[in-house]
């Protein structure tokens, strides 16, 4: 992965906010900031994917550079003089957060995002009640995922995970241009009609809850989703011999979603349809207050992942 460094033993010395910092050669400014324990907001960045540097919330000021530069992708260079808390940096971070929060539903975004909004004084309300947004009805097209693009910040992570960086399926891409840019299948065909193999890796990387398990979506709608009542149990997927770690999120003695740890060296957080969704048999027969999600027609032990139930939901 891009974030991994070749440890060749050489280091780069630079200055960040007046402090001398040394990082391994090839490290990005974000790694350098983190090494120096300088809190740096990120949205489109994920350790396991190549940085796309599109959200621009991690921008920093580098002496000699006219515009601000994205910390997530710019390699540290010897002698760089970096400011992460200048007026320009704070202003840009505030504007990025305001632009996003005024155009996208950030209600399911991580709590740290809301912390940054406070830190930088972002006030999305000042664009008025009629500020154009990406609000739209959620796409509920099957029994496994929901795509609610009113929560999409266009971080490109799902496209990366669906494409070359994990799944090599290419069911989705960025379409359109400008404010009309969006994540889409070809001609916006439904997910069951697309190349999607339902690995769920796009959900795994989505930072804002735009891509969400149908179980979670339904429980949230019913008001029964409660993370404080959930526990996470790590286990190893039993379907094949690869040895993917699974984190089973359990609420009221029922599995409500399955993830894989980002730092697991087998999965980097990615799974296949079986590991991600093939757990209904575990609780078959249990009384299910949340309404069970139908099991994908994937039999344990089958070697190829057959598609899930692709009946379009009404």
């Amino acid at each position, binding site marked *: 992965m891009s974030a991994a460094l070749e440890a060749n033993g050489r280091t780069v010395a630079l200055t960040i906010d007046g402090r001398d910092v040394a990082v391994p050669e090839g490290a990005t400014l974000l790694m350098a900031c983190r090494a120096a324990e300088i809190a740096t907001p990120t949205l489109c960045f994920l350790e396991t994917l190549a940085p796309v*540097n*599109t*959200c*621009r*919330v991690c*921008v920093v000021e580098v002496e000699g550079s006219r*515009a*601000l530069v*994205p910390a997530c*992708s*710019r390699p540290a260079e010897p002698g760089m003089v970096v400011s992460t808390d200048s007026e*320009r940096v704070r*202003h*840009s971070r*505030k*504007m*990025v957060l305001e*632009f*996003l929060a*005024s*155009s996208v539903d950030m209600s399911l975004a991580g709590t740290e995002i809301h912390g940054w909004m406070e830190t930088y004084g972002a006030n999305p309300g*000042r*664009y*008025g009640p*009629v*500020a*154009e947004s990406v609000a739209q009805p959620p796409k509920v097209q099957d029994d496994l995922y929901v795509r609610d693009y009113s929560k999409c*910040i*266009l971080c490109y992570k799902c496209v990366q995970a669906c494409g070359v960086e994990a799944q090599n*399926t*290419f*069911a*989705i*891409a*960025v*379409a*359109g*241009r*400008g*404010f*009309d*840019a969006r994540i*889409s*299948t*070809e*001609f916006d065909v439904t997910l069951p*009609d*697309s*190349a999607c193999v339902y690995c769920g890796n796009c959900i795994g990387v989505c930072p804002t809850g735009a891509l969400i398990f149908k179980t979670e979506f339904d429980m949230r709608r019913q008001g029964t989703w409660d993370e404080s009542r959930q526990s996470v149990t790590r286990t190893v997927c039993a379907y094949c011999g690869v040895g993917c770690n699974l984190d089973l999120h359990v609420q009221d003695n029922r599995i409500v979603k399955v993830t894989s740890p980002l730092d697991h060296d087998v999965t980097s957080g990615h799974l296949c349809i079986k590991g991600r969704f093939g757990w209904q048999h575990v609780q078959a027969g249990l009384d299910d207050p949340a309404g069970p999600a139908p099991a994908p027609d994937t039999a344990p032990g089958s070697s190829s992942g057959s598609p899930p139930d692709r009946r379009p939901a009404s």
Partner: protein
Amino acid sequence: MAAAPGAAEREAVDAFLASLAEPAGEMPPPRHLLLPALHALVDAIGWVSEGGLNHVCERFGIPPAEAYGVASFYALLPTEPRAPVVIHACDDIVCRMAGAHRVAAVLEEVLGPAGGTDAVTWLPSPCVGACDRAPAAFVQRSNAENATVDSLAPGLPVERLLADLAGREGTDLALPLRSGSVRIPQVEDGAQGLRLLRRIGRVDPASLDDYQAAGGYDALRRAIDLGPAGVIREVTDSRLMGRGGAAFPAGRKWSAVASAPARPHFLICNADESEPGTFKDRALMEEDPFALIEAMTIAGFATGCEKSYLYVRGEYPVATARLDHAIRECRHQGLLGANVMGAGFDFDIEIRRGGGAYICGEETALFNSIEGFRGEPRNKPPFPTDRGLFGKPTVVNNVETLVNVLDIVLEGGPAFATLGTEGSTGTKLFCVSGSVTRPGLYEVTFGTTLRQLLDLAGGVTSGRRMKAVLLGGAAGTFVTPERLDLPLTFEATREAGAALGSGVVVVFDDTVDLADILLRIAAFFRHESCGQCVPCRVGTVRQEEALERLVAGGNEAALLEEIARGMGDASICGLGHTAGLAVRSALGLGLIGNGGPR
């Protein structure tokens, strides 16, 4: 499930792939041919249909979602059914001063609402690069030579309708639907001392013989004598600065690529000319195509490029056709291809048509566009001279920049550098439009003042008073009449907080509603943002909204300033960096928003 392609869709794509110099055969063609294949589809059936896209994807081995993402990026590659003939009626800065709304009203009356699916329709369009003939339009036609507009009159030929629309009397409709040639008043007047424009009107743009008889290819011969290092020395000594907007020294770029160890090297001529108000490169390409080809050959020779791309704006069909013809002639005469002029180097040029996206003029977006991807800019560094097209060292130069090289090679860099000023050598083409007596293309030596340029153009339209001048286009800034003695040089404009950009000079008189112009500029950036980065994707929308409130009397100047700063600092590319300039400058000069409704 996936729509199957019809016969016409199949035929269009297959015929294109078979027409290639190296037909793809059974092998999937390379990804960089995706945009040309989509163009072939639209040329044939008018849009990128589901079946057509699926066939392209099958031949190329590209996932349909990917190809759809590419097609939907480009305004000229519609992914919804559209009429085979589309009149793209410009309603941008200059055309709206010249009555674009009246044109739209007539088109609507005759053809119905914009974007229909009948034989002919119309759409409002950003600047089509014909501001000297405003109000202007560009006609996109798919395979519709014999089409009729039966909905208007049974058997009415499309061509008749277009001719009729262009010639309507009493409607002020001067639609140059056939893309009238650029007006060049100095050439009309037989002015002496023109350099970049000296062959125009005197040399047949279709005749290589004519071009050679007028001294054409003397420069390449001289370049071959000088050798690559010698040519680069002359270009460096000339202190030629790029004419595409960023004013980067051409010699520095050339020597960086020439000395780059990675191979191959690529040359790209940036002819995407889409900055509102700009039409200079179109004039050079339409009227003097061999000069550009010769200049590109010299650039390729000097920088070690065997392969080059000429990326022409999709809205410039005449320029494309003339360049295509000229390239064939040159190949035929051994001036392009293997062993050019028998001098032992290979060089060829491939034309690529843009798809209707301003952002593709940004050099890294241009790379992605040629490579068959969405025209999204890349982060810099790495710089193009290091890792550009296909990840290889790449020279990108503007049309006008390149044409200057002919004289630099012929007369020597130091002699060239005596023209103009210390920081701005040579002559510059200016696209003068708006409220002037003789709009058109002008060539003046750097250092000429804005007043002198406007005098050449006959001054402000008679009976009117000048309110402001926009320098540099939508990405530019305003200058007020008190500043007319501003010397037109890179350094003087920079000092004045302005920029020459691509050479746009739009004059506004006191009857022009500048608020309306600024709203159009804001809409332009919103429409042309690639959408990749947040500050520009959302910032351009917030700018437009705040400007609307300001124009309605709101107190939004401070917010607009904040938005402009955010876009200027945090965006990825020059589009976002400059998207707030014009609004900021108009506010700073008090041209809009002096409290209360106008």
